[in-house]
């Protein structure tokens, strides 16, 4: 293996860390242009190197032992980065989203200080490190790094009331989740004496499943699933997304949340599988996925705050991702990996659009903005197109990923999952389309939303209302949407994704690459691409989304037909909304409930 490629993984983390440190020290004296250029350059450097890694991982895993502590006879005291195609792909996605966010920021905050760039670069380093590491404790450190930075980014508008509360909820819940993970890491280390994924795997092979390791695994997963926003660990997500600056939301929804799920998949496949067979993990992930998808979709419909609406749509999508991940098969996970990238592009574009609206109109409230944004032509087209893409409009990447995941799931015998995926993507897409039609087209009438979290008191993030939207804010929106569209058209992508998923699920190959230096991977076998029925189902879910949107817009006209909605229908909705109380203590209780359910789930299956 050429040493240059091997040197890349640590550099991907080190470069943004060093640049962030320099900017933090000298940011006060440097002109804005230099800060922007330095952070953008280091981000592009990470992007370029990730692409090189992505190309290199086609034929082998890239393994790099820090400080040259390579293993001797399969054991080492060092710390390792093990990069396979999923890891390199995630690093590429992270860097691309950070580049989009930085471009958008150029004119978004007019008084932005270097702190913002420093935080974003640290966030980049933490996320990339988490995606590439092959060590449980390093994973925790990177996890906490991206967590701590994310809290600060959420509360970036520190002079306002709401971002502070959102950041506090986010910080306490995620920290508590991370401490659960650390307790779990402690238990697993106590049993195996190892911290590297591959070493843990070898230590666990042949052991009977004992309760201590299972509790440890459940605790580790709890931390990851808090970040991954699985119900009932998801409460922080909407609060944080509603108040964080829009370019930060792109990173949260686009990839940080998904990294939580990646953590579960990676640690299971590379470390924990000998004591937790797929048959035991599968029902737990799928059950969590179904609940998450349903709750996310229902809450998404009920929002009038644009960013909260998009946040709950992310919860709904996380549910679908969990279901596809739960199949634990290459076909479904291959589709999932395309779906995640497509979702990141589309959701990112939608969040940036809502940022444009916030700055142009001083509000993100669907009711207040009714018909107010007709003269934002580019944003209008992008937002509505984003809504359709979220509902899996062919040939967007969201559609390709979803149809491949559905095929994988139904081959695995989970036919019900197909209906759920179509329903949830139609509902979340429909909710976005409803809001878009109201805001940008003036359709329907303003909804009646007394007593909710309204988007009308949000402060614009520029001190002046932008007369003309700067081109640096529109370019990332269009680029993200174009990326999401192109993703669905790349020939051979299904094969590559299937291959990447096979690598992710190859337990022994991972350990051999890390410890024995056997890093070659089998060349991919061509897999099925999308089918005609997949295309038709994509069209179907878009049509359903349009129905959902129309129902939301014009329901009041038919209200006379149903003189009284029975309480059976409204009660679960009301209970669900009451649960999202914004109260920290409630969220901690939910976290403990979720942790207990996860432990019981892994123990009884």
């Amino acid at each position, binding site marked *: 293996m050429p040493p240059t490629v091997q040197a890349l993984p640590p550099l991907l983390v080190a470069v943004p860390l060093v640049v962030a440190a320099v900017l933090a020290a000298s940011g006060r004296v440097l002109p804005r242009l230099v800060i922007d250029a330095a952070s953008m350059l280091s981000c592009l450097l990470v992007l370029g190197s990730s692409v090189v890694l992505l190309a290199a991982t086609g034929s082998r895993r890239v393994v790099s032992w820090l400080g040259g502590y390579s293993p001797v006879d399969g054991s080492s005291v060092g710390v390792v980065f093990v990069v396979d195609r999923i890891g390199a792909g995630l690093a590429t996605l992270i860097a691309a989203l950070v580049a989009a966010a930085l471009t958008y920021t150029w004119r978004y905050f007019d008084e932005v200080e270097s702190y913002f760039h420093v935080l974003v670069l640290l966030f980049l380093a933490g996320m990339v490190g988490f995606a590439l590491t092959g060590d449980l*404790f390093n994973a925790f*450190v990177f996890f*906490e790094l991206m*967590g*701590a930075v994310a*809290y*600060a980014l959420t*509360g970036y508008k*520190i*002079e*306002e*009331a*709401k971002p*502070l*509360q*959102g*950041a*506090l*909820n986010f*910080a*306490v819940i995620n*920290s*508590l989740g*991370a*401490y659960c993970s*650390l*307790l779990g*890491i*402690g*238990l697993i*280390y*106590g049993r195996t004496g190892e*911290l590297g994924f591959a070493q843990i795997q070898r230590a666990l092979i042949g052991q009977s499943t004992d309760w201590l390791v299972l509790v440890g695994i459940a605790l580790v997963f709890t931390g990851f699933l808090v970040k991954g926003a699985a119900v009932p660990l998801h409460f922080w997500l*909407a*609060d944080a997304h*509603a*108040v964080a600056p829009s370019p930060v939301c792109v990173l949260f929804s686009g990839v940080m949340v998904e990294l939580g799920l990646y953590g579960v998949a990676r640690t299971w496949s590379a470390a924990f599988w000998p004591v937790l067979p797929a048959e035991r993990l599968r029902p737990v992930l799928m059950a969590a996925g179904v609940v998450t998808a349903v709750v996310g979709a229902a*809450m998404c419909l*009920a929002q009038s705050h644009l960013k*909260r609406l998009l946040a709950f749509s992310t919860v709904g999508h996380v549910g679908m991702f969990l279901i596809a991940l739960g199949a634990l098969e290459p076909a479904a996970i291959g589709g999932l990996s395309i779906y995640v990238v497509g979702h990141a592009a589309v959701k990112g574009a939608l969040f940036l659009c809502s940022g444009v609206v916030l700055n142009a109109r001083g509000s993100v409230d669907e009711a207040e903005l009714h018909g107010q944004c007709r003269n934002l032509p580019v944003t209008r087209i992008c937002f509505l197109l984003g809504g359709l893409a979220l509902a899996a409009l062919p040939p967007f990447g969201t559609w390709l990923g979803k149809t491949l995941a559905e095929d994988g799931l139904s081959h695995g015998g989970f036919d019900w999952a197909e209906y759920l995926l179509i329903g949830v993507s139609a509902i979340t897409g429909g909710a976005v389309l409803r809001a878009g039609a109201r805001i940008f087209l003036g359709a329907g009438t303003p909804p009646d939303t007394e*007593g*909710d*979290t309204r988007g009308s008191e949000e402060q614009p993030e520029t001190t002046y209302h932008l007369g003309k939207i700067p081109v640096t804010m529109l370019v990332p929106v269009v680029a993200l949407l174009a990326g999401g569209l192109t993703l669905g058209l790349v020939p051979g992508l299904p094969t590559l994704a299937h291959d990447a998923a096979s690598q992710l699920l190859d337990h022994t190959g991972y350990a051999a690459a890390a410890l024995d230096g056997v890093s070659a991977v089998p060349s991919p076998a061509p897999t099925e691409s999308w089918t005609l029925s997949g295309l038709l189902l994509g069209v179907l879910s878009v049509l359903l989304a349009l129905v959902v949107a129309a129902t939301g817009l014009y329901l009041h006209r038919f209200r006379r037909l149903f003189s009284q909605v029975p309480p059976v229908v409204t009660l679960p909705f009301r209970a669900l*909304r009451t649960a*999202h*109380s*914004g*109260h*920290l*203590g409630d969220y*901690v*209780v939910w976290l*403990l409930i979720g942790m207990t359910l996860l432990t019981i789930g892994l123990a009884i299956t």
Partner: protein
Amino acid sequence: MTTLPYLVAGWLFLVGCYGLVTSHNLVHTVACLTVAQSATYVLLLAVGFRAGATAPVFADVPVGTRVVDPVVQALSLTDIVVAATVTAVLLALTIQIYKRHGTVNPDELRTLQD
């Protein structure tokens, strides 16, 4: 090896969570989070404990002396750094919350109710 440290770790975590749930003051909340985190220190150190062993400093002990596991001590140190960072961020947020909301009682923070 006694089970006492593990029971202490579990107790610390649960009592910290109890404090988080019932807290009426954000400073108290942040302190409770630190209490819950102390569980991780106790657990990690308990995992690395060996009866009759000395500290893992190899400068002035003969080769082959029993020492406790240095790895968990390194983990605990890292953990303490993380705790310091997170506590600092949270306390800074608390000060700002007091300035903007005029209260540090989480029961009175109602800007994010759905």
